[in-house]
């Protein structure tokens, strides 16, 4: 494990312990991180009400209290996995209620198989390994001389900002932003081969 990963994990564990042992900031940083991530999930593809988001936070907190003592390493990936799984469980609960109709030859609507209105593509993977690997990839990118700027661009991009909006925020040209983003996929792929 690289030094950066070790530091990140140490910070993560500290954040967890502050909550579990009710010391330091008493878990404020942890709850802020979880709240922001849950909100960002709800923003676009995974809509859930504010009440549902609160429930998810509550369930995650209980899981943390139940299991934190067994955590030795990969704190961030573990944390991400439990919050993500909790979110997906909630979505599945809603999905079970959805039905879709299609007209038959007479034009009468007939119930067909359940349709997923919400993609759960990321639900059934090995979250733990996937996240840990990608964390290493982005740690490596962040370590490069232009890493901080690149990460800021990538983060804006995943939040749905257009190239022109990112250009305005970062003071670069639209062309420069497009160039940075066009290489993201290859860069991630290459680093995954090297680091994971």
């Amino acid at each position, binding site marked *: 494990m690289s030094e950066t990963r070790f530091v990140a994990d140490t910070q993560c564990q500290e954040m967890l312990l502050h909550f579990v042992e009710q010391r330091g900031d008493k*878990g404020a940083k942890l709850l802020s991180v979880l709240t922001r991530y849950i909100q960002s999930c709800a923003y676009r593809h995974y809509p859930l009400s504010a009440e549902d988001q609160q429930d998810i936070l509550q369930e995650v907190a209980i899981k943390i209290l139940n299991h934190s003592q067994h955590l030795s390493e990969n704190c961030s990936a573990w944390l991400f996995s439990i919050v993500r799984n909790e979110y997906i469980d909630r979505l599945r609960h809603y999905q079970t209620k959805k039905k*879709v109709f299609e007209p038959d030859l007479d034009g009468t609507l007939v119930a067909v198989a359940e349709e997923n209105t919400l*993609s759960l593509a990321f639900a059934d993977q090995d979250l733990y390994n996937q996240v840990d690997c990608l964390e290493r990839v982005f740690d490596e990118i962040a370590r490069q001389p232009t890493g901080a700027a690149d990460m800021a661009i990538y983060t804006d991009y995943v939040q749905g900002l257009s190239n022109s909006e990112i250009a305005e925020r970062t003071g670069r040209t639209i062309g420069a932003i497009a160039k940075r983003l066009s290489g993201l996929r290859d860069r991630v792929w290459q680093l995954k081969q090297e680091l994971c």
Partner: protein
Amino acid sequence: MADENEHETEAWDEVVSGKRLPVAGKGDDEEAEAVRQVLLWRQAREQTAVISPEQAAAFYQRSEQLRRERLRSSRGKTLSLLVVVGLGLLGAGLGLGWWLSQPTTLSSAVSTPTTTQPMIPAAAPPSDMPQMIALAAGSFTMGCTAGWDDQLGGCRENEYPAHSVQVKGFAIARHEITVQQFKRFVDDTSYVTTAEFQQQGCAIQDLQKPSAWVISPNHNWRNPSFTQPPVHPVVCVSWQDAQAYAEWLSKKTGHSYRLPTEAEWEYAARGGKITAFYWGSQPDRNFANILGVEGKDQWAQTAPVGQFAANPFGLHDMAGNVWEWTADCWQQTYQITASTQETCSQNAFRARRGGGWDNVPASARSAARSPASLLDRSYVLGFRVVKDLP
């Protein structure tokens, strides 16, 4: 080959940037979604705290209390389960002994009917009568909530202020009233709609000047200027026509049918979600028939009802397809006072909701509203009914 690679990268970018949903089981999409989620996760970690230590401590207390309650409850359940299993084994042993002592006979299988009721009635194809879904009483935030409903370039003045509303339980039609359903009513009553009466016509867009609307005497619900199979939502019906349908349905069934109030309509449309659309904050033609043809929305005018996935309450087309009449008089804002309520006369404008097939996405938001007079009828305007629960 280069084209294929470019296409793959484009598809990957769409998922990473949140423009498209990932497809489950598709490797590239899943990888892109993982990248997107990890970047969001990292960003959440790097933000400065928004929760104070005192709030965190209070949250901890609540979580710890809940955790302990659940532990106690699960221990109790485990004990009960052990007792039940023990008694069961004892009973089974006694039963087996009794059975072995009996002469051999053919045993009959006895099934115990399940007592679990589905949350939503089993779906049946809409016939010529509307299929109703019962919604439990509840409260929700009606109108434009900052940070949620206004993510698509803001809300209209008439959507403010957001306010908490409680609604009683009611049943609402799973789909917009279809041509087939409206035809049954007309066949049964010989009803003449506003558009048909003395060929008053229906409002359609002027083919010569698409931005303008004209009342076309030749058009009505039977012929709204485009082909409508029986499962399309009926259009070119006025508020009065919709009222007449609800009255007929009430007499026919012995139940009390009517148009939904605005609050009932929005409660049903949101399906428990605070976001601008029930599926999220951004428009998506995979979920609604609105202006343009893209994704799952392949209809230039009305779509057959139920073509898009239902909202969490099991209702279809609460966004797009056709505007839907509500029972309520139009109010310019939600700042309603007793005096303004009195101005709601028989001739006042009525509110319509949901947006139609010719609308931009913003008009199909759950909070979006629009007024129309009692006798207005157009090829984007239909309705659905609600039923009072006993």
